[in-house]
Every structure is written in structure tokens, then in C-alpha cells.
């Protein structure tokens, strides 16, 4: 199966020549999938084909080409509905990405439903995309933002979460489905149920999970859920905001302009019904089409196969990292309840040096705090190296990386 998947990603055939330009180029090992994934042929072709044969404004023209473009665009809405098991197609809103989706929910919710002194509950595991919009809104509106602390191995303890709910009585709860630093999967279903018991609205950030775990918004019973196309083997510039219909209907529009209106007069504008109300302006149609192709790709492989393969990768990686002396893995060292994302520090070697020297071996990893400074400072005072794997990565690539890490240590400790 592996070869047939890898062959679908043209960029994986790239060879890397880093500085200093000496020695042969190395074949690319792409371990930065939590930042953005590579794109399979099916996505590239779908977008290319759209521009070549269907490009036209959607929802505007009465001519044949515009109808084809509109159909292509709206078909993806059905695909996304099916992908996350939403009850209604108009609960699927296309946005510019997960960050844009979160900003939209925060802005709308703050405007309509939150008041000075209201509490917002987040976890210490959140990405800046969840933290910063709430903090900015809190400053404007006088809200309180509270954080659920994590266990020492970087998990959310449901008991600690429930205590925080009881203590702060938040009106709104924002939770990441999966940590972008540790790869840990949160018990979101239980967390949502507990939050609903005290009447809080829950937003799930599925940016990190959408490519790795099946999502069922009805089973989760979440109020809002967001994800990006580009972390799901799809294009950049497109994402999804899912919201329960009755909540989206109450939420004010966040982008005002063409298409999102019902009627405009000199006196007043009335807004279009869902989902058009939230899709003002010309939409990134080719990107939406690319997102549809990406979902087809993921569904073609299937989550059973994805999870089986990624669990094997996790087991192999954990085994390899374990034998590197002085390496500290952030978060749990088990394959259970995780996706293949691994952040670590090596004593005496800065993460940027590790990343640059891995790059010389053709291995692309991330160094830094990974847009999660609160989580990161909890677990490590120093920047860390993150390796995040995807469906096309292999055990052989892990072996190459472990060998390279040994080599870097030899060089530094000489």
C-alpha cells in the first residue's frame, strides 16, 4: 500500500541540497506535516482541471460554465458534510482556514452572546490560533480567559477539566482535538458532554486531527468545529467552519459584501440564509475543489488503514527515540491516544542546530515552540524539535532520522 500512496505525491521525489553545497543531494524526508501536508496528484489535478475547464464565478452566472463551477463548489459542501457527519449541508461554511474559522466564531459569539465578566475556558494545550483571538476579544469586552492545566505527561485530565468547569462556570469552551506539539488526542467527547452540562458552548479545533482521525460532529455533539484544508493533504487558503444550524443562524456574518445578502437598499441590507450568509465575496473556488479532492484521497485510503499505518510509525519512532541518550520527549511516550507527532529536546544541542543538521540529511522538521508557547513553556524552557508524520511517511525514513540524530550527537559531543 505504502508505495502506491507515496507515488501519488510528486514532491516526495524531490531531492534536497542544503548549505554547504557539498556532497550529493538527499532524498526528501518530510516530517513537518503538522505545519502543512504535501498534496497528492488528485488534488493538484482537480485544481488544475477546474481552472482549465470550469472556472467561473459561483452562484452568480446563469450560463453553463458558471453552473458547472457552482456545482463543483457545492458538491464539496456535501463531501465535507459526509466527511464530518454533519446533519445538514448548510452547517458547512467554507473559510480561509482553521484560524479564520475560529476568529469568525469568536467575533460573532462575543458580539451576540458574551458580556463583561463572562468566562472562557481553554486548555494549556491550545494553539495560538485559539488563544489569541479569545485574549484579544477578552481585552475588548472584559471577558476572563482561563486555562485548564495539563498532567505532567501533557494530557488533559477529565477530572481536572470538570473541576475547572465548576470553578469558572465558562460560557464558552475552546478545545483542541489533538495537540500540535505532543500529538495527544483529547477526550473531546467527554469534555463536550461535561461542558454542555453547565450550559457552555464548545468549539473544537480539529486542525491537527482531521487528517488522522475520523470525525463525527453529531456523535461528538460539538457546537462548532474547525479545520484547514492544507493539513489534510489539500490546498492552502481554504478551511471549514462547522456549526450547529441553530447557532449559525444566530451568529452574525463576519464578512460583508457580495453573495451574502438577500436584499440591499439604501436604507438596509438583509442577509442571505445559511451558508451564503458567511461566504461573502468571491470564494476560493479552486481551493474548495482541491479540498474536495483531498477528502476523496483520505477516504480512498480510509481511516482504518491510516490509523493502522500511523500507529506503526509511532511505535517505531518511540522505539528509535528511546535509545538516543539525552533526548527528552515532550508528552507521552506511548502509542495509545496519539497521532505521530513527536517533540523533543536533546541536552546540549539547540533545536535549531538539530533542525539545520537534519536538513543536511534531507530531513525536514520544525524547531521552535510550534505556535503553542503556553504548552511549550509548561513542558520545556527551551525550544524543541518537532517531527510530525503523515500517511506517506515510512519506517525507513524514521530509521534514517534516528541515524542522523546519532550522527549529530557525535559531532556536537566530540
Amino acid at each position, binding site marked *: 500500500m505504502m508505495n502506491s500512496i507515496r507515488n501519488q505525491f510528486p514532491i516526495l521525489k524531490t531531492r534536497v541540497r542544503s548549505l554547504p553545497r557539498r*556532497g550529493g543531494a538527499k532524498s526528501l524526508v518530510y516530517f513537518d506535516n503538522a505545519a502543512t501536508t504535501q498534496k497528492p496528484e488528485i488534488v493538484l489535478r482537480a485544481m488544475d482541471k477546474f481552472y482549465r475547464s470550469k472556472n467561473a464565478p459561483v452562484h452568480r452566472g446563469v450560463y453553463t460554465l458558471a453552473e458547472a463551477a457552482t456545482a463543483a463548489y457545492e458538491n464539496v459542501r456535501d463531501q465535507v458534510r459526509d466527511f464530518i457527519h454533519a446533519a445538514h449541508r448548510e452547517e458547512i461554511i467554507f473559510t480561509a482556514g482553521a484560524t479564520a474559522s475560529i476568529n469568525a466564531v469568536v467575533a460573532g459569539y462575543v458580539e451576540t452572546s458574551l458580556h463583561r465578566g463572562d468566562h472562557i475556558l481553554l486548555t494549556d494545550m491550545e494553539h495560538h490560533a485559539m488563544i489569541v483571538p479569545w485574549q484579544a476579544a477578552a481585552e475588548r469586552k472584559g471577558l476572563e480567559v482561563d486555562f485548564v492545566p495539563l498532567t505532567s505527561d501533557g494530557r488533559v485530565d477529565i477530572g481536572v477539566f470538570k473541576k475547572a468547569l465548576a470553578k469558572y462556570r465558562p460560557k464558552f469552551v475552546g478545545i483542541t482535538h489533538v495537540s500540535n506539539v505532543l500529538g495527544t488526542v483529547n477526550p473531546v467527547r467527554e469534555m463536550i458532554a461535561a461542558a454542555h452540562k453547565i450550559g457552555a458552548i464548545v468549539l473544537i479545533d480539529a486542525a491537527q486531527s482531521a487528517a488522522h482521525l475520523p470525525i463525527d460532529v453529531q456523535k461528538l455533539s460539538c457546537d462548532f468545529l474547525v479545520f484547514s484544508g492544507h493539513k489534510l493533504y489539500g490546498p492552502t487558503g481554504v478551511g471549514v467552519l462547522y456549526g450547529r444550524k441553530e447557532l449559525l443562524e444566530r451568529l452574525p456574518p463576519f464578512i460583508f459584501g457580495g453573495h451574502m445578502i438577500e436584499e440591499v437598499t439604501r436604507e438596509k441590507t438583509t442577509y442571505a440564509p445559511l451558508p451564503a450568509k458567511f461566504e461573502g465575496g468571491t470564494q476560493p473556488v479552486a481551493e474548495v475543489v482541491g479540498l474536495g479532492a483531498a477528502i476523496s484521497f483520505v477516504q480512498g485510503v480510509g481511516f482504518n488503514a491510516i490509523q493502522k499505518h500511523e500507529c506503526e510509525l509511532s511505535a517505531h519512532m518511540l522505539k528509535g527515540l528511546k535509545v538516543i541518550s539525552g533526548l527528552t520527549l515532550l508528552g507521552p511516550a506511548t502509542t495509545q491516544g496519539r497521532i505521530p507527532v513527536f517533540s523533543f529536546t536533546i541536552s546540549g544541542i*539547540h533545536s*535549531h*542546530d538539530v533542525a*539545520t543538521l537534519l536538513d543536511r540529511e534531507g530531513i525536514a522538521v520544525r524547531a521552535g515552540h510550534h505556535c503553542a508557547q503556553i504548552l511549550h513553556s509548561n513542558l520545556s524552557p527551551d*525550544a524543541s524539535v518537532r517531527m510530525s508524520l503523515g500517511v506517506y511517511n515510512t519506517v525507513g525514513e524514521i530509521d534514517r532520522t534516528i541515524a542522523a540524530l546519532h550522527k549529530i550527537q557525535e*559531532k*556536537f559531543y*566530540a
Partner: protein
Amino acid sequence: MHNDVRDMYREEILEHYRHPMNFGTLKKPSHTISAANPLCGDRITLQLRVEKGIVREVAFEASGCAISIAAASLFSEWMKGKKLAQVQKVGEKKTQELIKAPISVARIQCVLLPYSALKKASNSTSSELTRPRKLG
């Protein structure tokens, strides 16, 4: 991994990282300036004792990657006995020259960290920066 003379990870650079020159603090600094790289959280505090416009003593404390520590080590050694104004003027170019290796775009900020501390001193004439201050 080879030991190319044009390699920013050649043994000489790693040796500066392991045993940086002028690492520590000064007893009576005339300037104490800090800078940080927001990308990675690397930090440097640079101390100078300047007399009649000449850098007489220099020390730094830093947490950072091999490249930023080695750059600070080389740069601090180079500036001793030179006119502060001159050091400030050519510092940006000089820090890169001292590494003697091509630096990838992603890592240039690491090399420039000691210079960005020094630049802050040059841009300020306030008495606050020229008064001795405690580190940290």
C-alpha cells in the same frame, strides 16, 4: 558529516559554542543590553565597559543555538579595543564575516543576535542604558 572550512558547523565554530570567549558578566559595565530572537526564544545579554569611546571590556551571557553563541564569542573578541562607534557601524556585516561560512536565510537571525543587542546600545543615548544594571 564533514569538516568543511566553509561550513557553519565546522569544528572551530562548535568549539566556540562549547567554550565561548568572554562568557560571563563584567564587574563595572558601562552598557548592559539584551536582545531576543522571538522565533526561537534565544536571548543574549551583552555588557560593555567603554572608556573614551573605546570598548575596553566585553562580556555576554546567552542561551541559544551553536551559531548564535559562536557568533557572540567571535564578535565580542573582535570588538575589544575598537571604537564603539566603529563597531556599531560595521557590526552587522562583521558578525557574518566572522563566521566565515554561508548562512542559510532561516538562520541569519541567529548570527545577528549579538549585533542586534549592540545596535540597541548604539541607537540610545539615554542614561538608562549607560548606567550599570544587574543582569537578568
